């Protein structure tokens, strides 16, 4: 049970890092504390029995940090001075209160019948919930034999639910295409900035 306390401590650290990232005056500090939150999330993933996610989260975090630091570091407009917006902050806090109450009811605290399963007992297969088929217990039991892969998560991603992976490859493809389209210069040469030559040339 000591591990759950460790997970609570790590999520609290991630919350503090997220608050620092949101409220810091200097943009570089806020980006770096976002990196700290990402690394804490990677350790949380490892403790919760998800090593695939830990590896992927670490490398994705590093690349995202490099991108964000490159954007922030070479611009001169890097300190935030806008006054606080009271109306929007109040709206977010109200939404937060509503969400917390809904979460409390869903988890089943203080006498309400929860919709989410208690922590540590996921609904792997629920024969009482017919006609919904039990899924995760079957995946765990049959994945090594049917697919031949020892990693059940990979077997789910690339054999049982491969269509979702095709969808995800499409999403990444489209977002990279969007990036190329945004950064393209139409009608102008991409050499040194020809400021004197005027606008676009057909």
């Amino acid at each position, binding site marked *: 049970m000591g591990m759950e306390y460790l997970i609570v401590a790590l999520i609290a650290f991630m919350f503090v890092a997220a608050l620092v990232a949101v409220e810091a005056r200097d943009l570089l500090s806020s980006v770096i504390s976002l990196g700290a939150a990402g690394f804490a999330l990677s350790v949380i993933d490892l403790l919760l029995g998800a090593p695939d996610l830990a590896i992927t989260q670490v490398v994705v975090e590093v690349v995202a940090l490099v991108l964000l630091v490159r954007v922030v*570091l070479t611009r001169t407009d890097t300190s935030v001075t806008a006054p606080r917006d009271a109306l929007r902050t109040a709206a977010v806090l109200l939404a937060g209160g509503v969400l917390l109450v809904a979460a409390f009811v869903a988890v089943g605290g203080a006498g309400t019948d929860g919709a989410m399963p208690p922590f540590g007992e996921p609904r792997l297969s629920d024969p009482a919930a017919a006609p919904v088929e039990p899924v995760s217990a079957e995946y765990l039991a049959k994945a090594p034999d049917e697919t031949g892969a020892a990693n059940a998560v990979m077997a789910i991603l690339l054999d049982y639910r491969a269509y979702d992976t095709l969808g995800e490859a499409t999403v990444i493809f489209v977002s990279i295409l969007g990036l190329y389209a945004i950064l393209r210069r139409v009608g102008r040469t*991409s050499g040194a900035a020809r400021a004197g030559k005027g606008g676009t040339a057909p």
Partner: protein
Amino acid sequence: MNDPGMSLIVKNTARLITGFIAVFGIYIALTGHISPGGGFAGGVILASAVVLVVLAFGREFAARLVTEPQCHGWDAAGAMGFLVVALLGYLVGGFFWNFLPTGRLGHLYSGGMIPVANLAILVKVGAGLAGAFIALALFHRTTQRREI
């Protein structure tokens, strides 16, 4: 960031370890069905090798080494490879049917089409992110109005 790249120590270190980073990424992608990792993590690690080259040697050198049309080509090839893996299943049963023999559990030759699909995803994610980073670096070069 300055052109052409960083100091001599950084350049020599990058020369030594870029190959290892790329091989590590390919290893994590290929053994995704045995140990944690998979095609996505491997692809991002491979892209980070290209990021290291761009940061250490400057954008001009890196853009000549790994050109953008090359990245576009490999990106599209990875996506088409994944689709081919899916459509090949039609030969046997249906969409995405896993038809290669399952082999022995825990060995590299196991899992049917899963390592092949991991390889396609490695190529797609790696080339896509590398091309995106080079596009961002090259764009930055042409907007230097307030560079020191």
